[in-house]
């Protein structure tokens, strides 16, 4: 998977590393912004109230 990605990236090794770093940062930012806030309510450790929910 990552080997395939590496072979299909253009440029020299430093350029490919830079592209991968940018890609990883983008994935992480997307997770922090959208994915994690969306799944956090499903986690079982954030309930603080008493009563029906």
């Amino acid at each position: 998977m990552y080997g395939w990605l590496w072979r299909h990236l253009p440029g020299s090794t430093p350029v490919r590393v830079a592209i991968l770093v940018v890609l990883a940062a983008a994935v992480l930012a997307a997770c922090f912004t959208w994915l994690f806030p969306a799944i956090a309510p499903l986690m079982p450790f954030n309930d603080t109230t008493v009563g029906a929910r």
Partner: protein
Amino acid sequence: MTAPARVGLPRHGRPARRTSTGSVALAGLGVVGELLITAGVLLLAFLVWQLWWTDVEGNRAQAEIVRNLDWAQAPTAAPSAAPTPGATAGPVIAAPRRDQDPPVEAEPGLLATFATLQVPRWDGEPQRPVSEGVDKATVLDALGIGHYPGTAMPGAIGNFAMAGHRTTYAKPFNRVAELQVGDPIVVRTESTWYVYRVTSTEIVRPQDVAVIAPVPGKPGVAPTERSITLTTCHPMFSARQRFIVHGVLDYWAPVSDGVPAEIAGGA
């Protein structure tokens, strides 16, 4: 072609077909492995987000909320107006009022921030906003401490009940277990300070709503005391139980009189 055999090619003349299914299986296994590693990294990232980043964002957001309450700044801008030059520096201490009933505000609409909360025992904690509602997504995660709708307002006879995160989302009630009987809990609205004192703490099941009844623990009984109740999760990082703090009003004071002695030392 007489090129030298590449590493990895079958030796001993194995049938080419069998080798290719084998390498496909190996490649598939490699992909599965990479996916598992990726899932592990994402899980780690989620923990970083939940345990650290929500605190960063929450503290920033809650400080901003308090800053935007134009009344919430500690009224220390008055010392220059103090007519007594020999007076000690620092904020004016408000005299405790117990002579008459404290003023009680009307309950605001959902999401409205109507009070702030300070606990001197939690030294270093900022002044936290208190907003109407206990919905997780819109109040507890976004605004901080939430007031159970329908419970008493600050100073009123009944039970002023609030919920807050003990971990994550700026964790306003993180240090709730440090509270001891007699500790002050200082609530401020636009016009009034309300100084409560802790009377007891307990650990209950999540469905034990009696803790936020007008008389804590005795649903249906008509209240005569001005109580306060904090609810948060217990144990930390779990939703199995709830940690409850009860208190009663000690005194109140108009904001225009100064600052309660309980919080004048710090801040």
